[in-house]
Structures are given as structure tokens and as C-alpha cells.
């Protein structure tokens, strides 16, 4: 019931906002999101993490029984944690918009709340149609937020965002329809849209069929992630979106793509994933480096962070297609931690923008001397984003890379590599993705160098904001503190999260057992330790 409440509460409050003549929109929205946080916390407490892989808090209601349609909601630990992230970002987005949104306030907050419901619906849906409807429905509020409340180029950005992701999703729909049809034909025309049941059938498809399914699903989800080369909507949308829009976009909406890959592509088409993982891996690695280098030459700070999302999400997808526990778990961690650090960066840029009305690093910078509090937080979140150990970014990034590195036919004769797993990626993928860590340091520190350090610069004709002090006010600091605390806690003590996602991740990875061929080239590699007589081995060493 908690999940239903989480979905319904924002919707009801959105209705309240629209029909309340007194126009207390922002207070209603704040209340709704804060209550959601409490409900989310209760859900976390009630969830039985010892059975993390099982769907819990199941709510099922008949919808169109003739077609096997059900309103089916449930969460496993991964879904629940992503819902928790969504719910946590809710009040931050609402409260963060208090001074930024000046016109059509009602519409703004109402759509923000609707968006939250839709996102929670995506994560909680266990019925394909419900999932798809929620998935697509997130587009509408986001479209409106960008096109009504964005900056100069907002119409174009909103339209592009909409059409681009929508086109991808329609192709994904075709894939889903095929899976449903396949299931029905397999089960003698008994229809269902239950995700788990569909997955079981999908895995029985021929590799070629799975390939088509994977292609279809990826066209929907890769656009959303966004994976290179279908990423170009993102920088535009991010740059033009209002702050809260960017935070949600980076924090949650992009994760719909990776969540989709995790929840559908990986379990539905394992054989195809094994076959195409190198290709997806190459795209991810190219995206990491390519987008990272593009960040380096940006002058628009918001665009820089937007491109950095493309680069970062490359790690996330790489971890997923590594299809071993470390990689997939790292990827799930990435979905959560990226929401904190990049969400915070967008929030901070928004705070700066409200004061200086420019995003150009040529016009504004050196804020360390005038905005020490803002600058301290900025350095902190940059470090989280750069993947400094002890903060959240590191945990997920190192695991994605480690998983990628491991994902190779290491296990030679006699188990010479106990830490290796089967897989189709390997050291080179990890190495080239790893260069992304260097590139990330380059562009993020250059951004810090311009925005925080150096001589103070302000745009011409700058005057103090009426409502806002030079440095951050208590409200703004209050928004950043939970995010900062999250970065720190998940960086220093990620164990509870790792334990929570371990079971579902292992379950997903289990679909891949026996699918990955053992490469021949490792067969000659033997371990000295396992050989009793070294002399007989002499000369067989590998060099």
C-alpha cells in the first residue's frame, strides 16, 4: 500500500494545487514531497532486505482481465532504492524552485508532482503496460517543465527531448509487443503482461530473436541513458531546463534508461547481450571519452555538467554489460550515486545562475572569495563526481571498472585467476574507460578552477538579487546538506546498499551462467602454486 500511496499522494496534491484558488502551490508541493519522504522511509524500514531479490509490497488489482492486464505494483531492493532516490530528490527540487520560478507557479508545481508519481510508477510497475505508460508519461511533465520554465532556447530543447526519446520508446514498444506475443504463442494464447513471466519466455527465444528484442529495447533505453551516439538531446535539454528539471533529469530520468536495461534487456535477452556486449561496451567507452573531452572545451558550465552525465552514464552501461556481479552492482550503485552528485551540481549551478543570470564561465567565476559556502559545496560535489574515494562516486565507478576488467575469460586451467569471471569485455575496456577518470579530473577541475578559484569575475551590469544574499541562504544550504551527507555516507559506508542489491544483482547475473564461452587462449596459463613439481612446468610459463 505504501507504494500506491507514494504514487497517489503527489497526484492528489497536484490536483489540490490546480483547484486551490488560494495559490499556496509551493507549500502544498513541499508538504506532499516531504510526506513522500516519510512514506519512503517507512517503506525502506518495512522492506525485508533479507529477501531483497523478491518482489515485496505487492499490490495487484485486475485491470482488463480479458487481456491479462493487471495493475501490478511491487518492489525489489533495486526498485525500492531508486524510488527512495526519486522521493528524496522531490522536496529538494520543490524547495529549490521557490525563488527561481516566478510565473505559472501552480502549473509548475503540479507537473513536478505528477512527474514524481510517474517516475515512481516506472520503478514499481510489474506489469508491462503499466510500466510503459508510466515510462512514456514522464515525458509530458518534463516537456512542459522545459518548454514553459526553461531558458532562451527552451522550445527547441523541449521538442527535441520529446521527439527523440519518444521515437526511441516506440521502437522499444514494438520489442515489448513481440515479447508479449511470443509468450502468448508459447503458453497457448494465455495472455499476460507480468514482467517476470515475460522474462522467462523471452529467454527461451532463439538468439536471433533475442537480438532483435535487444535492439528494440536498446533503442528505447539507450536514448534515455543516453548512450553515445544518441545523446545529443541531453546537453540541449539540460542546458535549457529549469534547475529542478535538470536535477530530475540527471537524477532520475536518465536512470530510467539504465534501469530499463537492467530490468528488461539483461534478463530478457541474455544470449543477445553476450553477443552484443562488446559493441555496447565500445559505445559506452567511446561515450565516456568523447563526451569527457567535449566537456573540456565547454564554456557553458551547465552544458559541461550535462555532457559529464553522458560520460558518467557510460560507466553505468559498461558495468551493466559486464554482466558479472561486481559490474552490475556497481552500475546499480552508479544509478543512485550519480543522482546525488550530479543532481547536486545542477542544483548548485542553478543557485549561481539565479544570482548572476549567466552560465558562461567566461563571464562569471572566482566565486571562492565572494561565495565561500557555495564554493566549498562545489568543490565537495566536484570531488564526488570525479570519483574521489571516500565519496559515493568512487564506490560505483571502481566497481563498474573492476567488473569490466573481470569480465573476461580469466579462469584458466586450474583456476589460475580466482578473482576473474567469465565475460566478454576485459582489461582493454576497463583501461580505455579508465582514461575517462583522467578526463573527468581534467574537465571538472578546470570547471572548478574557473568557477571557484581565480580572480572574481561577474557579468556586466550585475546587481544583487532582491531576495537572495550574495552567498547561499539557509534554505539553499539545507537543500545541499542531505545530498552532501548522502555522498559522504554512501562513500564511506556503502555496505548496506551493496548488501541490499546483492541478491537481485546475483539473480540477474545468474541468467548468464553457461552462456559465455571460455576463451581458448587462457587454457595454457597455469598456476605455479597448484603444481607440485615445478621442473615439469619449466618452459611452459607464459612469457
Amino acid at each position, binding site marked *: 500500500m505504501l507504494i500506491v500511496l507514494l504514487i497517489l499522494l503527489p497526484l492528489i496534491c497536484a490536483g489540490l494545487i490546480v483547484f486551490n484558488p488560494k495559490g499556496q502551490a509551493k507549500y502544498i508541493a513541499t508538504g506532499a514531497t516531504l510526506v513522500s519522504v516519510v512514506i519512503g522511509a517507512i517503506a525502506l524500514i518495512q522492506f525485508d532486505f533479507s529477501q531483497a531479490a523478491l518482489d515485496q509490497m505487492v499490490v495487484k488489482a485486475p485491470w482488463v482481465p480479458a487481456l491479462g492486464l493487471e495493475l501490478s505494483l511491487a518492489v525489489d531492493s533495486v526498485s525500492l532504492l531508486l524510488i527512495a532516490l526519486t522521493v528524496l530528490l522531490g522536496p529538494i527540487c520543490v524547495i529549490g524552485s521557490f525563488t527561481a520560478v516566478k510565473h505559472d507557479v501552480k502549473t509548475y508545481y503540479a507537473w513536478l508532482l505528477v512527474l514524481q508519481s510517474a517516475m515512481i510508477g516506472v520503478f514499481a510497475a510489474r506489469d508491462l503496460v503499466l510500466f510503459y505508460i508510466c515510462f512514456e508519461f514522464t515525458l509530458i511533465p518534463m516537456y512542459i517543465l522545459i518548454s514553459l520554465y526553461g531558458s532562451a532556447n527552451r522550445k527547441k530543447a523541449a521538442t527535441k527531448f520529446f521527439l527523440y526519446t519518444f521515437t526511441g520508446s516506440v521502437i522499444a514498444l514494438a520489442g515489448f509487443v513481440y515479447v508479449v506475443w511470443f509468450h502468448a504463442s508459447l503458453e497457448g494464447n494465455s495472455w499476460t503482461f507480468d514482467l517476470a513471466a515475460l522474462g522467462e519466455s523471452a529467454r527461451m527465444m532463439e538468439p536471433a530473436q533475442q537480438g532483435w528484442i535487444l535492439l528494440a529495447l536498446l533503442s528505447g533505453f539507450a536514448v534515455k541513458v543516453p548512450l553515445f551516439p544518441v545523446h545529443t538531446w541531453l546537453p540541449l535539454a539540460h542546458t535549457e531546463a529549469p534547475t529542478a528539471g535538470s536535477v530530475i533529469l540527471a537524477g532520475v530520468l536518465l536512470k530510467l534508461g539504465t534501469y530499463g536495461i537492467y530490468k528488461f534487456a539483461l534478463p530478457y535477452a541474455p544470449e543477445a547481450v553476450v553477443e552484443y556486449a562488446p559493441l555496447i561496451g565500445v559505445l559506452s567507452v567511446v561515450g565516456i571519452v568523447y563526451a569527457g573531452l567535449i566537456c*573540456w*572545451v565547454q564554456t557553458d558550465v551547465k552544458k559541461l555538467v550535462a555532457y559529464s552525465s553522458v560520460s558518467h552514464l557510460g560507466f553505468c552501461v559498461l558495468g551493466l554489460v559486464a554482466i558479472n556481479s561486481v559490474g552490475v552492482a556497481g552500475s546499480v550503485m552508479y544509478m543512485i550515486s550519480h543522482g546525488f552528485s550530479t543532481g547536486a551540481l545542477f542544483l548548485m549551478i542553478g543557485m549561481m545562475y539565479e544570482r548572476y543570470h549567466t552560465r558562461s564561465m567566461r563571464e562569471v567565476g572566482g566565486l571562492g572569495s565572494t561565495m565561500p559556502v557555495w564554493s566549498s559545496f562545489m568543490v565537495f560535489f566536484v570531488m564526488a563526481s570525479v570519483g574521489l574515494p571516500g565519496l559515493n562516486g568512487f564506490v560505483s565507478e571502481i566497481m563498474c571498472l573492476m567488473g569490466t576488467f573481470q569480465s573476461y575469460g580469466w579462469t584458466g586451467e586450474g583456476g589460475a585467476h580466482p578473482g576473474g569471471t567469465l565475460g566478454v569485455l576485459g582489461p582493454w575496456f576497463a583501461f580505455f574507460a579508465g582514461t575517462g577518470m583522467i578526463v573527468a579530473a581534467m574537465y571538472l577541475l578546470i570547471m572548478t578552477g574557473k568557477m571557484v*578559484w581565480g580572480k572574481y569575475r561577474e557579468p556586466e551590469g550585475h546587481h544583487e538579487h532582491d531576495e537572495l544574499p550574495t552567498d547561499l541562504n539557509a534554505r539553499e544550504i539545507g537543500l545541499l546538506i542531505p545530498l552532501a551527507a548522502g555522498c559522504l555516507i554512501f562513500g*564511506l559506508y556503502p555496505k548496506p546498499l551493496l548488501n541490499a542489491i*546483492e541478491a537481485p544483482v546475483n539473480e540477474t547475473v545468474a541468467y548468464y551462467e553457461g552462456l559465455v564461452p571460455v576463451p581458448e587462449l587462457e587454457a595454457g596459463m*597455469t598456476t605455479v602454486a597448484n603444481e607440485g613439481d615445478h621442473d615439469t612446468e619449466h618452459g*611452459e610459463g607464459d612469457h
Partner: protein
Amino acid sequence: MLTDVMNSLPMLTLAAADGAKGSGPLIESWAAAPGWVLLIPLLPLLAAVLNVGCAIAGVKTKLPAVITIVSLAAAFVLTALAYLSFSGETRIVTGWSWFDLSWGDGPGQSMKADFGFYIDNLSLLWMLFVTGLATLIATYASEYMEHDVGQGYNRFFFAFALFVFSMSCLVLGDNLLMLYLGWEGVGLCSYLLIGYFYKKPEAVAAAKKAFIVNRIGDLGLAIGVFLTFVHFGTLEYAELFSSEQLAGYIDAVKAGNAGDVPLMAQLIPVFLMIGAFGKSAQFPLYVWLPDAMEGPTPVSALIHAATMVTAGVYLIARFYPVFLVSEWALPVVAWIGAFTAFLAATIGMAQFDIKRIMAYSTVSQLGYMFAGLALLSSTGGVFHVLTHAFFKALLFLCCGAVMHGFAGQLDLRKLSGLWSQPGWRVVSVGMLIGCINLAGVPFTAGYFSKDMILAEAFVTQGPGYGLIGWLLLLTAGMTAYYTFRVFFRVFVGPVRYEPGDDDHGSSDHDHEHDQSDAHGHDGHAHTDHAQHPFHPHPPRLAINGVLATLSVLAVLAAGLYFVTPENKGWVGSMLKDSTAAQVYFDGESDHPTRAGLFLIDGDAHHRDHAHADDHADHGEHAAHGSFLGFDPHKVMYYVSAIVGAIGIGFAAWAHGPRGAVSGFLGDRTEAATSRMDAVARSFGPIPKWAEHKWYVDEFYHFLFRAPLWVLSHIFHAIDKLLVDGLVNLIGYVPRAFGRLAQPGQSGVLHGYALSMAGGVAVILLVVMMVAG
């Protein structure tokens, strides 16, 4: 049980019986283990947190310095207690579980890393000088940074304390990820502190450069970590060093079957060393360290001379067994170390900024440490880390006192005769003590530690190791020269000085004051005003006290050489129970070739020489290295003393004082010129090239940064025109089609609703068809 395992490591009876099954029994419970050891890293962390509190509360006193000094001193006392109560038994104290993910029950099927601390003699040795020096330097900084009280003071001591915490994690961490945490943590603090004067563009650039260059090394380290995990299935030291696998490799090497060690295992140290080269500023990743001198001098002393930059040496010492089983790892380290030592010394000889000279000297000395470890003198290498920490910190702090007193003046051409200045005697004596140590004057600590490395360079057999010995010896002479060049120029001779750019604020902290615009003009303004009397302000109690203490410690460090001579000094006695145990102690009769690498003491005599001969590429001449026919161990004391004397003598001749000895040592009346100028001219453009650091920075710029920069712009253009352009083109087709079909209607939402309905219709249609 752990004792057995760890003690046996150097003895190579690596017990397969105990401990090898898993880490379970190795991890002591809180009650059994000295849990208070956790306070050693946590106290500095607490100080950092409190300093953040000070910043929030807007403290305008020296409170953050007091907090930092007290907590660091407490950490030092605890470290000393841990050392005194240490039983020789490696202990693991676990704070909390950090990474924990498993996907099976087998070995290597879980990724585990705790916030755990590995207490053995090696880590204790490092922690002793890290916390000790940090306490002293924090005391020094409390006075040095006093111009910034209420401004950057809180920030400075926050980063300072955080640095000590990170360094503790690096050194004490019981697994590779903890090491990585400390590794990047110290990098962050280094970044924050180099960029401390953040209004100076050079400081910001230097900070950025340090972080990014270090990141390159970190990638190597990360790959080393991945390889270690894949190959050994664990990230924890205790499991790694007691693993049957590693024991097997050691046995193989011992038996002369070095080729049996798989490629993977041989590659691990190669990648780890890339990380070490980044953090410890070795070629080709050394370029960040000289620029790091933009930070406040106490930072240069602590982080960029004494502690952080030795992290790479620590890494190799900690992973010594892993390095030893690799055929190429140690020779590469030896060559890189020796080459870096030489290269940095050539640059150091041609610099005029005394802090830069010390920076290049640090790079050079770090090269010695690497060479020492690589030439199988782990005791010498680590001993040099220890002695260098003291005397180099001392030298930096003396330079800092000069800089502080002369308004940021660091140019040795503009300073002279400080010895005779009232109030500068402590600094001068401290400088002299630092210089004789660095130059390797007999019976100083630096002499003994460098000597051990030099002797081993001629003894150990390896690819071109003889040449390394000569290179290191030559570098020793150059070191003596550039060290005393500074001393003779700045501290003796006629009393002359020009204040630096920071005259009126009379410190290098001016950039902190509100003169962001004025700074550019300052330099010129005050050289014009040089006529008006400038009064250098000599250091006061805190700085002088610290300098005196460090001077005494630097002198006393020599005594460590005579503690337990059978182990080659106190350091040897510390190392022999750790992973960095000297692989042989019987230096007189047997010398290691690859096959005999692990021979120690009595074992050496049982060695079958035939094994050595099997591996012709590792030493075809008699397994005994020699120095011009003499035993290097015996003659190196004299040789290095002579080489050092030549260097000092040359410095005295070229830059020496006038007066009683002027007839003998040469005359120097001007601070700005010296006899060396004529000599330098005779070398043609070479001194100029050396002054410009052989244009390595420019070379890197053109080789890496510029192409990447161009590539980035190309990518940006491609992204806009091609990738996005294609999308726009595709997007245009249906839109054009749509306009054709529905003139006047281009409402996107409308279109969406239509498509949505279409989608549902498709589903329904399929449903009908199949169901029907």
C-alpha cells in the same frame, strides 16, 4: 597464527597450512586487537571536522592550529605507544566494513575491503615520522600562516589535518582499496593546499596539474588493483601475502624457474609502479612536483617533501614480494629511479628559486629511494625515506622562514649573507645541517642512507646496474654541488638582500588580502621602492623552535644506523619482519642474482651456484658485483665522501664567500653573480636548457595536451554538426511529411497523444488477432 605467516614471509617458508584459507581468523576481534590504534587516523579526521566547525563558526583566532597540533601530537603519541607495545606480530584492526559484495562461496568470489588497518613494523615506521613531522610542521605553520588568521587559516588547517588522515589510511590501510583511498585522499589535500592562494593563477594551475598528473598514475594503480584482484582473488594484504599462489611464485623464483611465474603476476607490479611514479614524482610523471611549490611552504615541507611523495616508495616496500617475483618490475624501477635522480639533479643545478631547487632535489632523492628498493637494498631505500623526511623538511622550513622574512624572496641571486644577519642564526644552522645531510657529508644521516643505496648499486646484478651505480654516484656529486650552491649563496658572503614581491604585506600571503587587482603591479612597484629601507623579520619562537627540534632530529637520525648493526640499523630491524624485508643480509659473500633473490643469512651458503648460471641474462659474471675491483660495501663510505667533497668544493669555489678563505675559496662580492657564470657560459646553451627544465613541460604540452585540446574541439564540432545534425535531418523528414499531411497542425502533444493511441491500438490489434 598471523605471526607465523608474516614472520615466515621473508623466510620463505610461507605456511600453506595456516591462514591461507581465508582472512577469517586473521582479523582480530576488537577486544584482542589494540582497538585504540584506530584513533591514529581518526584523531586527525576529528581535527579536520572540528576545523570545518571553526570555519562555519567564523573563528578568527589560532584555534584551528591548536586543534590540529593537539590532535596530531596525540596521534603521534599513540603511534609511538603502538610501536613500543608492538610485539612483532602483525595486527589487523578493523573499523568497519566498506566494500562487501559476494557472488559465491569460493575463493575470489567476493569483493571485500574493510576500513581496516594493518599494523606491522613497516606501517608503524611510516606512521612514526608522518605523525611526528606533521605535528612539528603544524606548529611551524601556526606561526607561518598567522597573516591569514580568520581568513584561510581554518581552510589551511582543515586540509592539513585531512591530509594526515588520508596519509594514515594510505599507510595503515589493510587492503588495496584503502591504499587507493589514502592515495587519492592525499592527492585531494595536495590539490587544496597547492591551490591555497587561489587568487594566484599559477597556484590554481599548479594544483590542477598536480591532481591530473596524479590521476594518470592512479589509473595505473587502479589497473594494478584490478589485476591483483583477478589474479589473487583478494584485495586484502593479509590474504594476499599469505596466499599459496604468491608462495608458489616465490618458490619458483627461488628454484630458478622464474619463467613459471605467469605473465599476469608479473604485470601487477608494473601497473602498481605507474601509480608510484605518479605520486612520488618520478619520470615521466614528475612534472607536477616542482610546480606544487606554489603552495605555502609548510605544505611543501610536509606533503611535497617528507611524507606524501614517499607513498610510492611505501607502495613498493609493501608489495616487495610481488615486485620480487616479476622479472622486469625492479629493473624498471631501478632505471627510472636512477634516471630521475640524475635528470632532476641537472635541473636543480640550474635553478635560481631556492624552493624549486629543493623541489627538484626531492624528485632526485626520491629517485634514490626507488633505486634503493629496486637494487634490493630495501633497508637503504626506506632508511633514506626516513632521513630525507627529516632533513628535507628542515631544508624546506628554513627556505620558508627566509621566504617569510624577506617578503617572498626566493631568488638566490637576491639574497646573501643571512648567517651574519641578527635573528637568522637558527635558520642558518638548520640550513647547514640540512645541507650537509643532503650533500652526504660523512657521519650525517643522509650520508649513511645514501651510502647503503650506492653500495648496493654496485653489488646487485641486473640489466645495466653497474651503470646505475655510476649514475647515482655522479648524481651524489651534483647533489652536493647544488645544495651548497644554495648555502653559499644565501647564507654566507656579503649581507645583501632584496625583498620579494610581497613587500608591504611582508609575507607571501598577500594574495589573500584584498588586492586581487593590485597584484600584477606589485612586483614592479616594489623593486622601484627597493631603496626605502626594508626590514626582514626574522622568525619567532614557533618557527625557530621547530627548526631547532628538526635540526636535532636530523642529526640524531644518523644514530639509527648504529642501532642493531646486524640488521643494518634500526630500519633494517623494523623491516625484517615486514613485507619489505631485506632479501639478504649476508652481503659479504653472496650477492643476489635473480635465482638467488630471496636468499637470506645462512641460506645463502647453501645456494647452488648452478642455478644462477642457468639464468645467464641475469648475471653472467661472478655473482659478486664490485666497484673497480673493490668490495663496494667497504669502499663506498670513502668513495661517496670523496664525491660529496668534490661537489661541495666546487660549490665553494664557484659560489663561496670572501674573507679569510677568499684567496683559497674564491671571492664573491656580488650576490647576483658568481664564478659559476663563466663556467656556465662555457657549456653553451646547456645550462639554459637545464634552467628551462629541458623543456619537458613544453614537450608534454605539444605531445599530449595540445592534440587532445584540438581533438576535443573536433569532437565538439562533430557532435554539433554530424551526430546532432544527422538526428535533426532524420527529425526533419517526418515533420515535413506531417506538415504536408496536416497543414496548420504541429502541436507536439497532439501528435504524442495520437501516437500513444496508435501504440495502444497496435497492442489491441495484436491481442485480437492472437486471441481471436
